[in-house]
């Protein structure tokens, strides 16, 4: 089967753009198949005008998917049983229909990423400070610095989405 890889801007920053990109490719017959590292896999299929939408729900049950099905949204793929992408014929009513639950979606994501970002930031600072203390012997100090780099990566990948969700929320609240 023919496959194509497309990149994602990261859902926290480019959700609308990513969904628009998926629609653009679906029109040319490249339809979303599944998540890929930092992007999506598309497969060759019929040319169709589809809307795409993403939602977050940890370990969803059948009821969750039944609501989408009932509303005309087909479940396409999920990542980590947590991020779910749906598609529907263009013109289907959106998956979020009111302000309060739309804000909830991003508030929950902001909280979840913040829960990882803050501790990993603190760990990074502590590890770098400890690793640079003169009183700690060389090899241990080096290990601490390397651990610091690891927690820094965790911080970047949670801190950036955190900022993205915060930005989105402030835009939604103003609008």
């Amino acid at each position, binding site marked *: 089967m023919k496959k194509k890889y497309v990149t994602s801007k990261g859902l926290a920053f480019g959700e609308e753009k990513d969904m628009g990109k998926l629609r653009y490719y679906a029109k040319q017959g490249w339809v979303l198949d599944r998540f890929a590292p930092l992007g999506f896999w598309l497969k060759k299929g019929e040319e169709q005008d589809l809307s795409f939408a993403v939602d977050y729900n940890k370990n969803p049950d059948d009821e969750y998917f*039944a609501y*989408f099905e*009932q509303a005309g949204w087909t479940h396409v793929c999920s990542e980590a049983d947590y991020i779910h992408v749906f598609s529907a014929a263009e013109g289907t009513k*959106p*998956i979020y*229909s009111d302000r309060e639950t739309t804000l909830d979606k991003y*508030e*929950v994501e902001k909280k979840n990423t913040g829960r990882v970002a803050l501790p990993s930031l603190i760990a990074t600072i502590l590890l770098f400070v400890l690793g640079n203390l003169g009183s700690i012997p060389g090899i241990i100090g080096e290990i601490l610095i390397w651990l610091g780099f690891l927690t820094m990566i965790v911080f970047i990948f949670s801190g950036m989405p955190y900022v993205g969700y915060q930005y989105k929320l402030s835009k939604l609240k103003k609008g």
Partner: protein
Amino acid sequence: MARNDSLEIGELTDTSFYILLSLVEARHGYLIMQNIEELTEGGFSIGPASMYTTIKKLLSAGLIELYGDGKGKRKTYIATNSGLQLLEKDIQRRELMIVHAKQVLNQKGEKSG
């Protein structure tokens, strides 16, 4: 849960208002959307993600509860007594809004008429 929670201040959003109204009788969760569209003749519809989130909020606030032993897709809900009370209260709040609006618009009509 999230801070933007109208239930905490004892008000229903339009979404939770119509869901609660639908659950005056026991109903399958996934049929609530359809029921609301029929009731309002398509004038009000709830997206599936908004539906799911609001059902969870109403459940955790004790305004609706599971009915019978349906599982998964067949889960059935019904409004609790406190749900019915809040619905009643919210109907009055909404009626008052209409009364206020009519007062203002009628006065304006009298002045210009």
